[in-house]
């Protein structure tokens, strides 16, 4: 079945391929039922005093939003979500890029190193969360290591101190994600032509200079994709926080995703949970949309 004469027939025949419209039906129906309609319902009922039973509700305007935005716990969660996303995005990308530069060199163990650095990515997030919870308990591995290396003064109650807990969680999230950023950067690095780097080396540019002036601009696409994935993923952060600290102590590490869950299923305050969900959706939507447009522009350029 060779495509005989297809080249000459192309302009006429291209319009001839018309896959049936019903091919779309299952995907569209499920997408409507699971994503679009429930989101629409959620948005609608966030402006009511709906109790979840459906039959009795009255419009209350923006009361739920006012209640959420004047609640210190919700505000703390919004702030924490931004902090966590910012710290993780910077940390994960810096480390991921350095690892990618490292394993893209001539080192003999590069395949083993890639395997090791990527391993945490495939690990179940709540498993990683419980693992790190143990490492960071007051009598856990980290404090033990500090003690035995003479740095006992640096011991902390990593998950019990409200000033520190969010940073501790960030460390665990970065450990899990650095390998993901690494493989995306690695794909970008492997597309950088060796000639460009060699020419610069002949011109006397050092390794740091070559990386900064030649490699980084050429892996622009990988950087943008990494930032997009990192920001969107961490604005929704639930698993690691839930398994490491459950948002505590006293709300110090609560994120938007954990607080929506608690408001709905622990406190059963449905209208407030919907308002919180809508705020999170707005944040992800606006930030994601802006980043996505930038990605497309970069891809076209």
């Amino acid at each position, binding site marked *: *079945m060779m*495509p005989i004469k297809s080249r000459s027939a192309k302009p006429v*025949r*291209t319009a001839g*391929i*018309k*896959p*049936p419209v019903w*091919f*779309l039906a*299952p*995907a569209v129906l*499920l*997408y409507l*039922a*699971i*994503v679009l*309609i*429930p*989101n629409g*319902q*959620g948005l609608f009922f966030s402006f009511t005093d709906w109790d*979840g039973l459906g039959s009795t509700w009255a419009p209350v305007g923006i009361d739920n939003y006012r209640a959420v935005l004047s609640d210190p716990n919700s505000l703390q969660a919004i702030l924490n979500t931004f902090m966590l996303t910012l710290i993780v995005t910077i940390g994960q990308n810096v480390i991921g890029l350095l690892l990618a530069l490292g394993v893209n*060199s001539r080192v*003999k*163990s590069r395949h*083993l190193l890639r*395997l*090791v*650095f*990527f*391993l*945490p990515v495939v690990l*179940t997030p*709540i498993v990683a969360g*419980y*693992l*790190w919870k*143990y*490492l960071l308990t007051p009598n856990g*591995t980290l404090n033990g290591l500090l003690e035995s290396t003479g740095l006992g003064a640096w011991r902390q109650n990593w998950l019990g101190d409200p000033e520190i807990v969010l940073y501790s969680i960030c460390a665990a999230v970065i450990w899990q994600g650095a390998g993901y950023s690494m*493989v995306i950067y690695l*794909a970008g690095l492997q597309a950088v032509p060796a000639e460009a*780097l*060699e020419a610069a*080396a002949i011109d006397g540019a050092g390794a740091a200079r070559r990386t900064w002036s030649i490699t980084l601009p050429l892996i622009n696409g990988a950087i943008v*994709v990494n930032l997009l*994935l990192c920001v969107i993923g961490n604005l*929704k952060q639930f698993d690691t926080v*839930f398994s490491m600290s459950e948002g505590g102590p006293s709300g110090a590490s609560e994120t*938007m995703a954990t607080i*929506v*869950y608690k408001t709905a299923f622990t406190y059963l305050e449905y209208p407030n*949970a*919907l308002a919180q969900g809508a705020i*999170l*959706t707005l944040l*992800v*939507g606006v930030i994601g949309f802006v980043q996505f447009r930038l990605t497309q522009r970069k*891809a076209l350029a």
Partner: protein
Amino acid sequence: MNRYTWRTCCLEIALLAVAFVFMVPMFVLVAVALRHPDGVQGFLGFTWPLDFSNLGDAWVESAMGPSIINSTWITGVSVALIIALASTAAYTLTRRTQHWTKGLFYLFLAGFLFPGQLAMLPLYLAFAKLGMVGNPLAVVLINVGGFMPFAIFLYSVFLRDLPKEYEESATIDGAMPMRMFWSVVFPLLRPVTGTVGILTALAIWNDFFTPLLYLTGGDSRTAPLSVFTFVSLYGADWPMVFSALITSVVPILIAYVLMQRFIMRGFASGLKG
């Protein structure tokens, strides 16, 4: 520049040191799970002798075996449906170039921007009304619907660059649409089907939130949910908890070792374009 110099050697030593630090949590996972109650604790908490009895106890107590079977079939059915629905939908969306197909494509793309927290309650109450809370099919449906934007996006990007010659000759031969898609187009999509399969399978297997909502307290738990249930029962009995953690991730670790290159390539090409 391509030679192994003393600088490369220094870099190699530094990277191996970083790799060791990266692996410390994994070493501790094994050390605590195999801790012998009377053993002398050494480096990173490893004891001599080791005690493997926790692994078996945790496996039985947490019902990890049945949970892994549940996770496997939920993941398998979800991924198969995602591939079937998204490939056919993306095929129609990219080959029919009309205004409404473009609009529909962007409607699917918009799905990237819904984090799921707003839809959580209405969806949960709808499934509750259908009596499907506790039913793994609810989790399958949510997985398939939720991953449509991602999968359709990847398939569409691939299909746009795919030459149409094969389809055209098949059309001339008079093949029916379904047969034509299955025997001509679908095999050509193999690279992107691999990427979609890897990324969605891992995400669904590791997912905790949806099973937490729909399968908590029921008989058919997934592996991550059983880990959570076990931890809430055993709390600070770390050797037991860590044994449960290990048994729950064994299937992923085996898959990772067997398909490492394939998996990393899938992640690297995940969101190109």
